[in-house]
């Protein structure tokens, strides 16, 4: 079975992990309520998309 020859140094471990980055989600203002929403998704604060209302799209702060 293939096994590592050397212990991975902390430096190598950390420099590998330093490249794990998160990207910011693109947002835009909702045309209805001007809260921030993701493009192509119904607005989570007012539940509208393209002038139509979807109550199941509404999200509060606690109910994600």
């Amino acid at each position, binding site marked *: 079975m293939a096994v590592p020859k050397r212990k991975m140094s902390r430096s190598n471990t950390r420099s590998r992990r330093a490249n794990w980055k998160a990207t910011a989600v693109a947002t835009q*203002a909702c*045309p209805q309520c*001007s809260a921030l929403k*993701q493009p*192509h*998704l*119904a607005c*989570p604060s007012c539940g509208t*998309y*393209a002038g*139509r209302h*979807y109550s*199941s*799209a509404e*999200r509060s702060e606690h*109910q*994600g």
Partner: protein
Amino acid sequence: MPTPTKGPRLGGGPAHERLILANLATQLFEHDRITTTEAKAKRLRPLAERMVTFAKRGDLHARRRVLTVVRDKGVVHRLFEEIAPDMAERQGGYTRITKIAPRKGDNAPMAVIELVREPVNAKPKRAVVAEAEGAAKKASKIVDAETAEATEVPVDDAAAADAAKNESADGGYGADSAAPLEDGSAPEGFTVKGNKDSMKYHVEGSRWFDATVAEVWFKTADAAAAAGFEPAGGESAQQED
């Protein structure tokens, strides 16, 4: 015919997928609108649309074909008698998927899939609109050329100056419009900003009002609309209070 699905089936196997899709279709035709995951909604769409096509055909054979998927006779009755007539004018595109925020718990992307039952409103073809706009532009160019010719004649210098003055006074869009003052601010009594490039108007306090550089000012939103300007962001966003 829908493209065969790539990748693994929904649920545990082919039979499980058939059951899931049949149940989803039944619920969709019963309630008109269901909330599910995006993946399921996308798989359901071709099946549901095929069921509507059968319903539009409306004969006994079609009904039996639908009954092999949707087992509930009450729901099939609703599909054939209530939904199919609404879809009579529609040529495909019977369902609409709207993505909504991911659900709590597993962060799965969710979607609402619904039957499009509102009557078909035929939009004017884009080509026709573009043609009309092109014609309008051409007409205005001809007018411009004529005025330019007039200014070239030296005798008409004074007249041309007058014309220029008039234009600045009414902004070029009738009596209720005005060109901005030298510092870009509004003349007295004019409150609606107009953008000549986008042909949109902005009433005071609306969303883009502060950011807009007024190329022409209007007294009222109605005057702007009469001059061929569109309300920016739709009619409801540009209500004067």
